[in-house]
């Protein structure tokens, strides 16, 4: 498997290198959030069972046959149906999760069928006992079904709205800083929108040795550097 953990970190981001030579980042979902998704799905399935039972019982023998076939399909193929269409069951979707192949592509039909058949083994002896143990022992939070199918459950990547950089006069940053250090100026300017003014001051004051200013003046100075870096003078 080509997925690798970033060296020296204990976080749950996995990177996968595509044939184009770039790295995709996947954020794995843990047992708790997956259990919540399962609970939502369970509720939906219960409603579906109820509906089938209610409608089927009006149609005598054929109705009973359809009830049994419906139960069979929901028990085994409810997740498959949704996973191959949108990558997630309604429960997972509600929790912001998606199932993918471990190379970052959308889950394939066969992988989805395997992971949902092996669910029967994960469920043992009671409420996913085996599945939970295996997940906790596994680096990628895979239950047995995920291992057999080669799938991962990850957080859906939401696109964030990019804010405008603050409008200030651009100033060149002091010399002698590395590229990565310069990048922090831009990151700070982009994050500013989400921070309270006091927190901005607090952060900017940490760099007093660089800016030589305090509070709002320091913030403005950092914004100026960021503007210079992204737009020039």
């Amino acid at each position, binding site marked *: 498997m080509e997925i690798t953990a970033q060296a020296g970190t204990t976080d749950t981001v996995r990177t996968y290198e595509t044939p184009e030579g770039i790295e995709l*980042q996947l954020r794995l979902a843990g047992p708790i959030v997956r259990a919540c998704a399962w609970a939502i799905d369970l509720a939906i399935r219960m409603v579906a069972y109820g509906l089938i039972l209610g409608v089927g019982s009006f149609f005598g023998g054929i109705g009973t046959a359809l009830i049994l076939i419906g139960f069979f399909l929901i028990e085994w193929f409810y997740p498959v149906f949704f996973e191959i269409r949108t990558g997630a069951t309604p429960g997972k979707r509600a929790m912001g999760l998606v199932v993918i192949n471990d190379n970052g592509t959308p889950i394939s039909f066969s992988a989805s069928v395997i992971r949902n058949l092996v669910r029967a083994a994960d469920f043992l002896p009671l409420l996913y006992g085996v599945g939970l143990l295996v997940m906790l022992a596994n680096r990628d939070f895979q239950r047995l079904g995920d291992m*057999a199918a080669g799938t991962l459950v990850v957080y859906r990547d939401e696109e964030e709205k990019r804010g405008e950089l603050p409008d200030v006069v651009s100033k060149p940053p002091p010399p002698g800083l590395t590229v990565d250090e310069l990048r922090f100026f831009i990151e700070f300017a982009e994050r500013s929108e989400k921070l309270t003014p006091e927190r901005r001051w607090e952060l900017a004051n940490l760099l007093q040795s660089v800016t030589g200013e305090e509070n709002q003046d320091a913030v403005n100075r950092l914004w100026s550097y960021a503007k210079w870096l992204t737009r020039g003078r």
Partner: protein
Amino acid sequence: MHQDAFEQHFEPVWSELGDLLDQLERSRFRRKVDAESATALPHLYRKVCNHYAIARSRRYSPALVAQLHHLVLRGHQQLYKRRGAWLWRLLAFIATDFPRSLRSHGNYFLLSLALFLLPALIIGGYCASDQDFIYSVMSADQVEAMEEMYASDNARPGRTLERSSESNFVMFGFYIFNNIGIGFRTFAMGILAGIGTVITMLYNGMVIGGVAGHLSGIGYHETFWGFVSSHASLELTAIIICGAAGLSLGHGMLAPGQLRRIDSIRRRGRQALPLVMGAALMLLGAAFIEAFWSASAVPNTVKYFLATMLWLLVILYFVFAGRGAGGNR
């Protein structure tokens, strides 16, 4: 190049890819995209991959990098997705892939067959000669229900009196629900180092053999064999195939060889899936026969004749189907 100029210069490419992906991510019937603009995807995608790599290496702002990463991720998913032709794939699966897959799992099939057949013959033999031995295998209630199902005076063999009024359709639904579920579980339990599958196969062998032996021993053989012979070829073979799939999975778990254990399981899973899907189709056919034909009042000679034909067909299918072209076996 400053980030701003970079963005202004390439923004049209990004929005073009974004719009195309918006279309492609919709369901097939709601997307408004012609074949020609869809062919632009690989080109656009690779361009944006390039921009993403540049943005990262030039340390452009994290927000820009995140925006490009999101585009690239979506493009990757669309480009490397498998699509369509499912009906053709299903036919090709039945005609070639399924029997080929079984032949490549020949050893597991024989092992699964032995796990089923040995207890069936031994327990069956005991039950046929000793009428009380069946109580060591099943509870008294189960024995009573089973005797009732195949009593010579039962007009609907294979169903208890309680169920005899149920229509064939109900039984069809029941056989699907029950039998295919058993097949799936037999496979899934294989991942527990094969133990689950071995136990399931032994247990099924004991119970089915015991029932057959007991009923033959007490003289219900006309109703019993008349009922089961028609669908046995499909049903029993399918369960044994599910057992073979589970055993292969268990073997991959126990003895991964030169692979990592997780890769070994994944590979076995992929290889065994055709067996399970094929077996499910067979169980569907068996359910149909069992519900609409096995319990009918057709004379036993006709049933036996057709049952023999079906056994021959199943054997010929698995031995010969899908051989030939390109040296495939």
